[in-house]
């Protein structure tokens, strides 16, 4: 006999592999309209010659298949998920209830404005909240996620410089940046220039002075950065970029560290994006979609995507009359129900609550950093913000156990692995973001497991190198998967 738990630890076949000829999961009612051959209903070009090879399964097969898949998943509702720079905080269920209200879930984007005043008011108020949190004057809720926000912000940079008759071609990006920053800049037609970090983990000021020039459109910065460190020279950085006509873009991926404490718009940033699916507790990592609102200070405001929601007294309307706008970046008004969930989160937390979120996120990360530093190399030994970066170089050099091996071993103990091998400037790194929603007990359990794995790396390195041992599938060949991807089922 295998227990249910063990059953959930076995690999699950594809539903196609469970197919049995003639088995069906439905029964249609008797036809109550005249029967006509399909050839009379559709043109020849629209008809396929062979039937699609759909899986033939019964209803109970389908239900069990997807239930078993759900049992071999990991997510924030199952366990700790310390994936650095992703802010995998718990998503309160009340947000889902609010997004399910018929008056919000049932509205259609083509409804006339007078029938959706409540939805428009929610968008308007959400914009005001994000303006207050980010220190900006207006916010577009259209962008669908963080990288989309980056592209939107850079298109606004471009429009701003073009209005001044300037053709600036380069974007500066620190070497600790998220990979999406250079990708967005390239998509926007810019050349990217890498700015090195200094020994404290911040922007190297001398290098920035050297690289900044009249051909630079702006600097993209994540603050706190991917080392979890707040740039101490932020005012100097802003001064160097602004004094030569450049603009500053704030990558909001790590905004969970600063709510109610520091506002990007006050520290020199011109365009800011927020990740509602990180900082504001809407689902992501398979449960999305995301939402990446973009805010601008007054001088960049005219370039924001149209429409924005304006208020005339107590009446709300979609304002399309924005002649210098870069235009629309997403169909309709963005991922509206994600905005609703984030709005519910902000309303339930309140201003005091959001400040407490950031304080607790920072406290949790520092607590964990000190515990991990007892067993792992700490490359930047200073207070961190919402996440910390430690390195597995000791384990690699002394025992031949790589960070990848230790990350795989964590799965055996029921934890999601942290982000590994990022940021690129720290070899063998682990980037750990606990978020504010974890208890001290959970942090202790994780730190204890990491200490235990460090011990295993010393006493039984092969055990760690062969991990995971208890998951439905064991160590995957990542190199083979990348070199020869096998992405779809094909009939025999």
């Amino acid at each position, binding site marked *: 006999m295998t227990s249910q738990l063990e059953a959930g630890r076995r690999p699950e076949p594809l539903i196609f592999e469970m197919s049995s000829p003639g088995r069906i999961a439905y029964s249609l009612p008797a036809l109550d309209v005249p029967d006509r051959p399909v050839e009379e209903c559709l043109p020849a070009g629209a008809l396929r010659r062979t039937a699609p090879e759909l899986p033939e399964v019964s209803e109970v097969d389908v239900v069990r298949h997807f239930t078993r898949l759900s049992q071999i998943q990991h997510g924030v509702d199952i366990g700790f998920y310390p994936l650095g720079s992703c802010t995998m905080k718990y998503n309160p269920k009340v947000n889902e209830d609010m997004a399910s209200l018929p008056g919000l879930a049932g509205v259609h984007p083509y409804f006339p404005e007078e029938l959706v005043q409540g939805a428009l008011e929610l968008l308007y108020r959400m914009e005001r909240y994000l303006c207050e949190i980010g220190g900006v004057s207006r916010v577009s809720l259209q962008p669908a996620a963080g990288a989309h926000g980056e592209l939107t912000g850079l298109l606004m940079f471009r429009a701003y410089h073009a209005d001044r008759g300037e053709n600036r071609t380069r974007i500066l990006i620190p070497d600790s940046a998220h*990979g999406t920053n250079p990708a967005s800049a390239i998509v926007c037609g810019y050349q990217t220039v890498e700015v090195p970090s200094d020994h404290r983990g911040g922007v190297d000021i001398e290098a920035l002075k050297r690289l900044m020039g009249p051909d630079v459109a702006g600097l993209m910065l994540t603050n706190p950065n991917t080392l979890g460190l707040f740039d101490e020279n932020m005012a100097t950085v802003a001064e160097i970029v602004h004094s030569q006509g450049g603009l500053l873009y704030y990558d909001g991926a790590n905004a969970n560290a600063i709510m109610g404490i520091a506002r990007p718009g006050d520290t020199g940033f011109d365009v800011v994006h927020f990740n509602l699916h990180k900082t504001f507790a809407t689902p992501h990592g398979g449960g999305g979609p995301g939402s990446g609102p973009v805010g601008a200070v007054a001088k960049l405001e005219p370039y924001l995507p149209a429409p924005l929601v304006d208020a005339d007294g107590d009446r709300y309307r979609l304002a399309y009359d924005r002649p210098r706008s870069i235009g629309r970046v997403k169909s309709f008004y963005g991922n509206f129900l994600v905005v609703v969930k984030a709005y519910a989160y902000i309303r339930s937390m309140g201003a005091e609550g959001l400040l407490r979120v950031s304080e607790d996120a920072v406290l949790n990360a520092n607590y964990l950093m000190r515990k991990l530093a007892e067993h792992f*190399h700490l*490359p930047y030994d200073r207070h961190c913000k919402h996440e910390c970066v430690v*390195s597995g*170089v000791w384990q690699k050099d002394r025992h031949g156990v790589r960070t*990848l091996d230790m990350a795989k071993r964590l799965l055996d103990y029921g934890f999601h692995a942290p982000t590994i*091998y*990022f940021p*690129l400037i720290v*070899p*063998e790194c682990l980037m750990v973001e606990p978020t504010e929603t974890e208890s001290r007990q959970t942090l202790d359990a994780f730190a204890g497991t990491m200490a235990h794995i460090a011990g295993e790396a010393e006493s039984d390195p092969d055990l760690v190198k062969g991990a995971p041992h208890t998951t439905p599938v064991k160590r995957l060949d*990542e*190199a083979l998967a*990348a*070199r020869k991807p096998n992405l779809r089922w094909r009939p025999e």
Partner: protein
Amino acid sequence: MTYPAGYRYTKTHEWIAAEGGKGKVGLTDYAQDHLGDITFVELPEVGRQLKRGEVFSVVESVKAASDCYSPAGGRVVAVNQKLEGEPDLINRDPHGEGWIFELELADPAELDALMDVETYSRFAAEEGEKG
């Protein structure tokens, strides 16, 4: 790790083996070890003019995508087509079969600015210790 004598090396961990006005270029053993299993190499186009320090390729591994910088200026005269099917040649034989492209040198004197094997061996060891 050992590196071939006679090659010249960059601080960004490329090597160049020059002979008769041409030079083969690849990544060092140190570089491939830090990248991990390489899954894709973007080869430069034959005929392309490169400046010294210009990005000639992006190498993707299971860990990261990394830019590679040309050790010298010149024209690309050949590329290692084998890498399209076997990018792991760089992992298996970084200083030999894993070469990436061949350059017709614009100015062979440029190589004097690069490191010799003793200097690079020390440099790579120090980089490794920095962790």
